[in-house]
C-alpha cells in the first residue's frame, strides 16, 4: 500500500524521479559518456560526406531533370497553342472573305433581276400605252363617223317634220345651222 502511494507520487512528479536517481546523462565519470561523442563525430563526418558528395547532388539532378522536362513540355504546349490560334485566325479570315464574296454575288444578282424586271415592265407599259392610244383614236374616228352619218339623217328628218307641220320647205342653210348648234349642245352635255 505504502509503495503504491510513493509510486503515485513518482508518477505525478517525474522531476522527483529524476532527483532520486543519478541521471546517466550527467555521469561524466563514465568514460562512455564522452567516448560516444567521439564516435558520433566519426559517424556524422561519414554521413556528411556520403550525403554531400553522393545523396543530395543525385536527388538534385533528378529534380533538375524533372523541372527541365516539365519546362520543355510547357514550351512545346505553348508553341502548339500559338500555332493553333494562328490557324483559327486564318480560318476565320477565310470564312469572312467567302461570306463577303457570296453576299456581293447575291446583291449583284438581286440588282440584275430588279433592273431586268423594271425594263420588262417599262416595255410592257409602253406597248399597252400604244395600244390604248390606237384604240382611242379608233373610237374617236368611229364617233366622228357616227356623228357625220347622223347629220344628213337628222336634216332629212327635220325637213320632213317641218314640211308636215308647216307645209313649207325650210331654208337649207338655216336648217344646217340649227342642226350644228343642237349637235354641239348635245356634245357639250
Amino acid at each position: 500500500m505504502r509503495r503504491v502511494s510513493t509510486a503515485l507520487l513518482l508518477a505525478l512528479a517525474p522531476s522527483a524521479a529524476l532527483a532520486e536517481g543519478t541521471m546517466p546523462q550527467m555521469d561524466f565519470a563514465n568514460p562512455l559518456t564522452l567516448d560516444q561523442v567521439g564516435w558520433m563525430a566519426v559517424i556524422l563526418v561519414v554521413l556528411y560526406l556520403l550525403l554531400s558528395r553522393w545523396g543530395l547532388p543525385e536527388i538534385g539532378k533528378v529534380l533538375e531533370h524533372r523541372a527541365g522536362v516539365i519546362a520543355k513540355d510547357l514550351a512545346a504546349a505553348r508553341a502548339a497553342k500559338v500555332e493553333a490560334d494562328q490557324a483559327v485566325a486564318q480560318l476565320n479570315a477565310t470564312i469572312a472573305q467567302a461570306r463577303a464574296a457570296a453576299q456581293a454575288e447575291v446583291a449583284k444578282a438581286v440588282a440584275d433581276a430588279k433592273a431586268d424586271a423594271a425594263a420588262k415592265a417599262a416595255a410592257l407599259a409602253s406597248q399597252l400605252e400604244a395600244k390604248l392610244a390606237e384604240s382611242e383614236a379608233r373610237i374617236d374616228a368611229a364617233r366622228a363617223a357616227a356623228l357625220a352619218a347622223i347629220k344628213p339623217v337628222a336634216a332629212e328628218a327635220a325637213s320632213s317634220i317641218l314640211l308636215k307641220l308647216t307645209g313649207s320647205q325650210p331654208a337649207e342653210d338655216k336648217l344646217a345651222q340649227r342642226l350644228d348648234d343642237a349637235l354641239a349642245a348635245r356634245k357639250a352635255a
Partner: protein
Amino acid sequence: MAGPTIDALGQFTLTTGLGGLGRAVNFTNSNEAMLGAAVVVVLVFALGLRSRALVPGRTQSLVELLYEFVRNMCVDTIGEEGLRFFPLVFTIFSFILLGNLIGLFPYFFAFTSHIAVTLTLALFVFVFSTGVGFYTHGFKFLKFFVPSGVPSWLLPLLVPIEIISYLSRPVSLSVRLFANMTAGHVMWEVFAGFMLLLTASFGVLGAFASVVPLGLNVALAALELLVAGLQAYVFAILTCLYLHDAVHMH
C-alpha cells in the same frame, strides 16, 4: 518480497555495443543507434535513387520531399547563400530526426536524450556559425553585438546583454532537445512501471486498473512522435537562423 520498482532512468545508461570489438574501442549502445540512424538515411537515399523516375515512387517521393523541405528551409531562412550550408543542415536534421524516431521504439536507445550528444551538436553549430560570421565579415562581425538605432548611452548595457544572449545559444539549443527527449522517455517509463506496480499491489483489480496508465502511454506515443519531428525541425531551423545571423549580421 521485492516488488517491481520504477527505474525511469535506466534506459539512458550507456553500455558498450557491437560485442567485444565495441568494448575494445568504447563503441557505446548510443553509437549503435547513431550508426543505425545514419544507415537508415543512406539506405533511404539508395532506395529512393534506384529508379530515378520522372514520376517518383513512394521512397523516391519521400527522399525528394525531405530534400525540398530542408532546401526550402535553408533558402527561406538564410537566403540564396544558404545553399552552401544545405548539406550540413540536411545531415544534422536527418541525423537528429532519425535518432529521435529510432529512440521511440522499445529497447532502442534514444541518443538525443544525452546532453553530451546534444551539447556537442549545439557547440558545433555555434562555433561553425561564429566562424562563418568572422570568415564573411572579418572583425566587423563584432558589430553584430552592437544593436543599431539605440542611443549610445544604452550601449554599455545592451552590448553585454547581446553577448550573453549569443553565448547562451548553444545552451538553449542543446537543453531544448535533451530535455524534450528525456522527459518524454521518462514519462513513458514511469507510466509503464506504474502498470507493473498496480498489478503487483492489487492483483487482478490492479491489472484492470492498469488500463489507465496504458491509455496515457498510448496518448504519449502520439505526442512523442510529434515531439521527435518537431525537435529535429527546431534544431535545424535554429541552425539556419544562426547561419543567417552570421551571413547577414542582423
